């Protein structure tokens, strides 16, 4: 008697809802979209800036509108999640050894956060705020 065949047929569109870990993965991937859109908005801002003061002020006004603010908050949330989720997996992609012993993952992650804070602070200072 043969065994009952194992057939796995996930939904092409809803597979990622099946398990919390798939949802977290999808969140990490989708977060890139918000960062991409935010980068595009910055490019539009630059273009408007090159067109003169009136155009740039119009851009600023639209960015400070309700839609602009809601999107900025959403983009901020996803950018932080993006950073967090990728930093969490860095020990897997970049395992380090020191003195013949593996460096604990928590240290690799912490160093990434430290670098993130230093670069952010440097940018903050450069921007003159």
């Amino acid at each position, binding site marked *: 008697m043969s065994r009952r065949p194992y057939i796995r047929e996930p939904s092409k569109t809803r597979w990622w809802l099946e398990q919390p870990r798939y949802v977290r*993965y999808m969140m990490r991937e989708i977060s890139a979209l918000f960062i991409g859109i935010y980068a595009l908005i910055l490019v539009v801002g630059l273009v408007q800036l090159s067109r003169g003061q009136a155009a740039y002020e119009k851009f600023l006004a639209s960015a400070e509108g309700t839609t602009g603010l809601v999107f900025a908050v959403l983009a901020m949330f996803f950018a932080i999640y993006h950073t967090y989720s990728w930093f969490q997996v860095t*020990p*897997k992609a970049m395992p380090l050894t020191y003195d013949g012993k593996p460096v604990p993952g928590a240290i690799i992650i912490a160093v990434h956060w430290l670098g993130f804070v230093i670069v952010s602070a440097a940018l903050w200072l450069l921007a003159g705020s």
Partner: protein
Amino acid sequence: MDDFIDKLGSVKPYIVAKEERDVDDGEYLQTPAELARFKQYTACINCLLCYSACPQYALTDSFVGPAALALAHRYNLDTRDAGRSAREDVVASNEGIWDCSFVGACSEVCPKSVDPAAAIQQTKIASTGDYFMKFLMPWKRK
């Protein structure tokens, strides 16, 4: 299971020696540090829980999959092995490491604490390096 066995075979999960050695020449020596580089991957028991957990494999069954790629990485890291370029055709193909989108479920479910997701990401980095080295140093062939 047959599918996995075929894929496992395709990545040459055994030591491809640089040169055949006579039994009289003695053992291949390896230091504890060299062993430590790949030891966790030797714990794989081919239970295929990683394939069951992998949504990528569920959607695209041509994907070579976590365990086979982790074992390929295990032999690539072995100092006694010289089969990396022989494995490359399968491992560094679209159906190999590049089908992996790093969900990481394989490593979470592994009962032997093998980390196939880590193996695949490290292989991606190594293979990307190979790709660029091909342009920088075309005369140098592994």
